[in-house]
């Protein structure tokens, strides 16, 4: 189950894209399949992960934070300490190496919070590739720091003014670019969604999170966790974490989506909690949509979770019951953001704060004997302005 190759995860996944992209997706699938079994590719990626991205990232026990939840032990997988400040670097190094194998000179990417855009711009700088990042206009405003970082790294940032002007529309615009420039351009997709092979490929590149965390739990704590937690937007850090524990029946898998103002208000991004199956951005999966199949705009304080779709493997895991998904409001996430910052001196990304808030609730439910592992997917520097506004600083 941890190795589901796609294109389908149960009834989800597939390739719902224009015919013009099929040849490129076939080419990418073939290149990835060849790379997977090529020791040279694996060695190069491992080398970059170690000497460039700073892996392995540590496991940190947060006792003062855990005391807020009544005594359970809580451990953080510190993806915030990876180069560029989030787990996104794991995926882009793999996809940038593949781009070179394809002989392409230009990469495009979509970004919500800017973390994937920064990571892609970073890998492009390292490997000498031209880079264009599509970002919703609204996101360029709330994540201005990351826009500046991308431009400093040499990427062109295109502010997308169509639709809801967030991540969904950035993906639309990136797909339009790809249809037009597919001959020399590779699309470095940021999350475990999209058409095959992206969901399986991104999961595989992010599975280093789960592999390391599982080994660290066994070596440093002497046991597997009771529960593994992560935030879910498109779902790449969570599927990377979950993938290592799928066969461990005793480890509960918990994904936390963005409830925004509250699922009941309609202003949220809780796709698995409140959506229905549909096809968006190349795959069948749960989707926020109306009765006509029109996409409903999502809302979250977190730009990285503000997406009305979700990766197809999460839809499969939800239906199968192997993973459980719940939604966390802006307010609960910001409360967890403040707690981790004040009690542990670790400022999380607001995306990751959704996972932390969920973990606090879960730890209370599971009781003092529980051992909870949380993927701290990114650091909060980019969110300082949003947080300052939220807390009236």
């Amino acid at each position, binding site marked *: 189950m941890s190795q589901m190759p796609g294109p389908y995860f149960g009834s989800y996944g597939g*390739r719902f*894209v224009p015919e013009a992209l099929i040849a490129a997706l076939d080419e990418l699938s073939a290149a990835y399949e060849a790379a997977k079994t090529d020791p040279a590719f694996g060695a190069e990626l491992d080398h970059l992960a170690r000497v460039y991205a700073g892996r392995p990232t540590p496991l940190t026990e947060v006792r003062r934070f855990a005391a807020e939840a009544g005594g359970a032990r809580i451990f953080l997988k510190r993806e915030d300490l990876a180069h560029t400040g989030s787990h996104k670097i794991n995926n882009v190094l793999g996809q940038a190496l593949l781009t070179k194998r394809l002989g392409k000179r230009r990469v495009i990417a979509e970004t919500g919070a800017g973390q994937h855009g920064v990571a892609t711009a970073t890998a492009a700088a390292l490997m000498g590739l031209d880079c264009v990042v599509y970002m919703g206009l609204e996101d360029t405003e709330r994540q201005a720091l990351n826009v500046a970082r991308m431009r400093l790294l040499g990427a062109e940032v295109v502010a997308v003014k169509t639709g809801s002007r967030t991540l969904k529309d950035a993906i639309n615009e990136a797909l339009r670019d790809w249809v*037009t420039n597919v001959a020399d351009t590779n699309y470095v997709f940021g999350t475990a969604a999209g058409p095959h092979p992206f969901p399986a490929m991104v999961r595989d590149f992010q599975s280093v999170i789960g592999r390391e965390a599982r080994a660290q739990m066994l070596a440093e704590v002497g046991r597997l966790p009771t529960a593994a937690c992560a935030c879910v937007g498109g779902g790449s850090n969570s599927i990377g974490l979950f993938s290592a524990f799928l066969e461990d029946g005793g480890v509960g898998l918990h994904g936390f989506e963005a409830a925004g103002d509250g699922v009941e208000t309609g202003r949220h991004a809780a796709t698995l909690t409140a959506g*229905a199956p549909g096809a968006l951005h190349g795959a069948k999966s749960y989707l926020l949509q109306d009765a006509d199949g029109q996409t409903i705009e999502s809302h979250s304080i977190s730009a990285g979770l503000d997406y009305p779709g979700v990766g197809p493997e999460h839809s499969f895991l939800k239906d199968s019951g192997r993973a459980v998904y719940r939604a966390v409001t802006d307010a609960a996430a910001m409360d967890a953001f403040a707690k981790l910052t004040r009690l542990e001196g670790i400022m999380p990304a607001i995306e990751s704060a959704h996972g932390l808030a969920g973990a606090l609730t879960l730890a209370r439910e599971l009781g003092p004997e529980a051992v909870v592992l949380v993927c701290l997917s990114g650091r909060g520097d980019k969110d300082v302005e949003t947080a300052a506004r939220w807390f009236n600083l």
Partner: protein
Amino acid sequence: MRALNAGGLGRGGRPQGAADAIGRARAEGRAALVAYLPCGFPSLTASIDACRALIRGGADVIELGLPYSDPVMDGPVIAEAATAALAGGFRVDDVFEAVAELAPAGVPIEVMTYYNPVFRRGEERFAGELAAAGGAGLITPDLIPEEAGAWTRAADGFGLDKVFLVAPTSSAERLRLTAAACRGFTYATSTMGVTGVRSSLSELARPLVERTRAAGADNVCVGIGVSTPEQAAEVASFADGVIVGSAFVKRLAAGRDVEALAAELREAARP
């Protein structure tokens, strides 16, 4: 020729498909004009009136767009029209109403729609409602035949056209697969890119049409970036039909009549 089809019904009491209309144009020594406009833009009634104008101008097939929130194959002209239609309250039911209004004119109406509105309604129900309204079939720009099992079964059950797209990057194997899956015509995208007006016709168009014919397609129509009478004439020299969209939408958005452009394009589309 048009008088033969008064009432708009073909074999078996069902609306005729696009293949018949393309065949009639061919018999007249010209390529068929497939004219696109989105339903609900600038309003439902205005879009129906504009399609009637296209028919008066001589369109052989109407491609009626179903406005969708995430139109990844469309450039700014059509994407903005879709956004405006949705903001104006467009509902999928409106398409069936528009088809029912237009079908009696005897020109086949193909609905151009992204997949999710069809999946959401259910392929069987969508096909049934389209057939009941007198529609000819669907053009599905983000659905490839391998993913279209449920739509194919529904369309076959109701005798509807299934129009899939081929692209300059399609392999010979994929051209065979797609040509075999199409009924009505095969939609050849002239260039790599999204819908929109371009200054010249892509040189990729002719070889794609030739390869698609060699792969077994009877009727190959060319769209994406075809907007002027000159481009229509060029396409007519090697294809069975000329698909024009953004040029009509631009004209409609500017408050101008589309009938004259349709007539010009029809007249130009001769080899």
